[in-house]
């Protein structure tokens, strides 16, 4: 429905779990089908250590461009500074004010945005090829010479703080932040990218400048360009615009292999939203890192459990029982660890029925396991749905960004079918035993606490917070 989609955009909603339709990974059983392979790209390093990826695509006269920096919320101190620093890049450069940047980009129909994630910060631009001579230098200024104007920074902080309150009006928009903080506790992966209203309010322009100087360095960054351009000309332009970017001193990085939490008992976080119509819930535990050799195998097994419309979870909770509009499961991966979640929502009166059925269905992974027919179907599905994930310039930028951040190569694409094909029923058994959290499950329930507390207690040790409390933590 259009209205639904527009409302998604305005409320910055996202859907949980793997997106089931267009973005899920399948291939034909037809041996004559054309194999989908990674398009040719250039990957090299400038003298200052800056990594460059260039991937020409001529289908439409557009260019997508990204700068990726190894700095994310794992490096936050105070909370939210990585995201605020990235967003602050758009507030002006030594040559242009914020308003001038916006006027130039908008005038050409182009877009430039910046933001951060747990492990990286990025600037993304999209523009028409004919406008390269204006847009690439503007992009280079934004990345290398930000002004961090303090008046604009204060306004940005106010918008971000108000945005946090607004996000909390939608349980779906914030439940993952609660879950990651509940699960990872003191580990850097616990830190919410968005920060919280108190941490953001206290950040100064000086701290933003310092964060930028510490982390935005060519040897820890990549420039990615995908689209309709001449490789020789683009190389020359990038050398001229980024060749002088100077390295600074190295900063100490957090040790992400340490402090991973030990989950020794089942726990439940209830987030009280008194006017909730429904209960939104996540159930899960520690998952896998992005470079795990079983990443693709787990994607296939997860497809069966909760990654597509006919998955066990959606079939039971939606199709058989009408308890919800949708139920899914998902491995969310980072460089050193990850999260596994089952997600759904239901009328507050059916909270217990939905959670019990989700748990019962999840237990089938061990009790019943995956049969050959279901495995064959899931393999066909992930292969058939794979190519449309890498169709646009933006999608290819995102793929190259992942390659840079997680140390992956083109085999991610080129050996995908092969890795899916070789998966056996016995392999799925091993994957279930090895990776899916079975004991000491962790729960987050957002809903009316007065009504769902007695239910929550049945699943583990309960903590309650109000949704309007600062941040996303259980404390």
């Amino acid at each position, binding site marked *: 429905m259009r209205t639904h989609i527009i409302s998604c955009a305005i409320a910055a909603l996202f859907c949980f779990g793997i997106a089931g339709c267009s973005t899920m990974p399948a291939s034909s059983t037809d041996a004559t089908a054309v194999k989908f392979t990674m398009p040719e790209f250039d990957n090299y390093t400038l003298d200052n250590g800056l990594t460059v990826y260039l991937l020409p695509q001529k289908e439409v006269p557009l260019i997508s461009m990204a700068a990726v920096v190894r700095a994310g919320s794992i490096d936050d101190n105070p909370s939210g500074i990585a995201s605020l620093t990235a967003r602050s890049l758009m507030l002006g450069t030594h040559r242009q004010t914020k308003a001038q940047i916006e006027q130039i980009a908008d005038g050409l129909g182009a877009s430039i945005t910046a933001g951060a994630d747990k492990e990286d910060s990025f600037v993304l631009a999209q523009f028409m090829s004919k406008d390269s001579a204006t847009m690439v230098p503007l992009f280079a200024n934004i990345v290398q010479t930000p002004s961090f104007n303090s008046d604009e920074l204060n306004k940005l902080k106010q918008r971000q703080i108000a945005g946090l309150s607004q996000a909390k009006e939608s349980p779906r928009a914030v439940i993952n932040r609660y879950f990651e903080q509940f699960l990872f506790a003191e580990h850097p992966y616990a830190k919410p990218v968005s920060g919280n209203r108190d941490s953001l309010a206290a950040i100064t322009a000086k701290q933003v400048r310092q964060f930028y100087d510490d982390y935005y360095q060519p040897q820890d960054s990549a420039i990615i360009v995908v689209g309709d351009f001449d490789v020789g000309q683009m190389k020359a332009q990038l050398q001229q615009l980024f060749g002088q970017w100077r390295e600074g001193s190295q900063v100490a990085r957090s040790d992400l292999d340490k402090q991973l939490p030990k989950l020794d008992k089942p726990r439940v976080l209830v987030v009280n939203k008194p006017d909730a119509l429904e209960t939104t819930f996540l159930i899960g535990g520690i998952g896998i890192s992005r470079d795990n050799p079983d990443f693709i195998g787990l994607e296939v097994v997860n497809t069966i459990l909760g990654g597509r419309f006919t998955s066990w979870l959606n079939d039971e909770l939606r*199709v058989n029982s009408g308890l919800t509009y949708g139920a899914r499961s998902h491995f969310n991966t980072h460089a050193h660890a990850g999260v596994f979640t089952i997600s759904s929502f239901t009328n507050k009166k059916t909270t217990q029925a939905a959670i019990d059925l989700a748990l019962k269905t999840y237990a089938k992974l061990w009790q019943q396991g995956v049969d050959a027919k279901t495995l064959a179907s899931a393999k066909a599905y992930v292969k058939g749905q794979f190519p449309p994930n890498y169709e646009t310039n933006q999608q290819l930028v995102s793929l190259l960004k992942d390659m840079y951040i997680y140390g992956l190569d083109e085999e991610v694409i080129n050996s995908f079918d092969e890795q899916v094909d070789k998966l056996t029923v016995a392999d799925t058994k091993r994957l279930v035993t090895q990776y899916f959290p079975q004991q000491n499950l962790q729960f987050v329930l957002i809903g009316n606490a007065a009504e769902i507390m007695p239910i929550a207690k049945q699943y583990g040790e309960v903590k309650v917070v109000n949704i309007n409390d600062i941040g996303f933590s259980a404390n």
Partner: protein
Amino acid sequence: MKWLCSLLLACVSCSLWATSADDIQRFTLKNGMQIMVIEDDSIPNANMYLFWKVGSRNEAPGITGISHFFEHMMFNGAKTYGPKQFDRTMEAAGGANNAYTTENLTVYTNWFPVSAMETIFKLEADRIEHLDIDAAMVESERRVVTSERSTGLENSNWRTLSEEVKGVAFRAHPYSWPVIGHESDIAAWSLADLQQYHQTYYAPNNALVVIAGAVKLAQVKALAEKYFAPIPAQAPPRSIKTVEPKQKGERRVFVHKASVSTPNIMLAYHVPATKDADYYGLDLLAGILSEGNSSRLSRALIDKQIAIAAETYMPQSFDPNLFYIYAIAAPKVSAKQLEQALLQPIENIAKNGVTEAELSKVKNMRLMDFYRAMETINGKANTIGSYELYFGDMNKLFDAPAAYSQVTPADIQRIAQQFLKRENRTVGVLSSAKESGL
């Protein structure tokens, strides 16, 4: 929608500057089903979009939401492929699907490796001709749709406010009710209502099918003749005759929701249908108001810390519909202050017009939208199908560049004066404030 996903529909409000008529091939089956084919082998996949000319505008009180409900029921079993078999068969062949319903259309979308195309034809033909509406399935699906309605209201303020605003802006035309329907209607429609609905609207002569991807016209034609051509045509559905009476003064609606952190305002102005010559000017005006940080609303509201978000939305539409303007207040800004601040830039355009530079900016944005839509086989199928239906003639697509380029600053000013005026608007306020007094 059939189920929740992050798929954003490709832009359908842009024209096909760079595509020639030769790229789009079409034929009509003898039962009246129209089929368009776009050959594109950039990936070894294809899609099939089935646009059915039925949406909430075809409903009446008592069966509001039935079009959307039907969107769900189409997945629940037919003659050859019984309950659950549509999805299971499609997914096992490597395909995925979804569907969406609007005020005007119900659209089914299948994405698949091209080797699965015959399976897709079989599945679609079975449910078009032989849908089996099972009573137990209907009851279960009512609960699913009730959950879909509820999760929309829980998570989206736009959803919560727009259904009230539409109800006030339209008092006669079926655009009055939400596409998902009234809760009591979802609980009440009968098996007979559903059977009647399927027979009337899911007739091949009421559909447009668009297929894009690594396919060949001859192959599509052969499959369409084999699977779709035998489905009998039906008498055309009755046309929608209700014309919304002219609004003669501002209308207002207030909605209370305790968890709303700052007030939300929605302005809705009556505007003509998409086929109207003013569509292009209205679309550009929407862009000037809200697209990009240099837009009028962004400069007037967000830069000045009055709002944290401001957007416009104008759905493509068979009948005259609404031009929406939406804003979310910054902290400590009242609904009244936000409303006043929102009205000023609109009034300013009506009074002083827009610049050539602003207009050229938004034309460039439309060109970017178009290229983005043409970047994927999905964007191509959805855009081309939507154009054919909303503009009424595929060839008009090629007039769109000229239509956009001909819009002048004077046109924008005239359009703002003509449509974005007080007596033509409904103002919706969503707030946590409690109304008090008598």
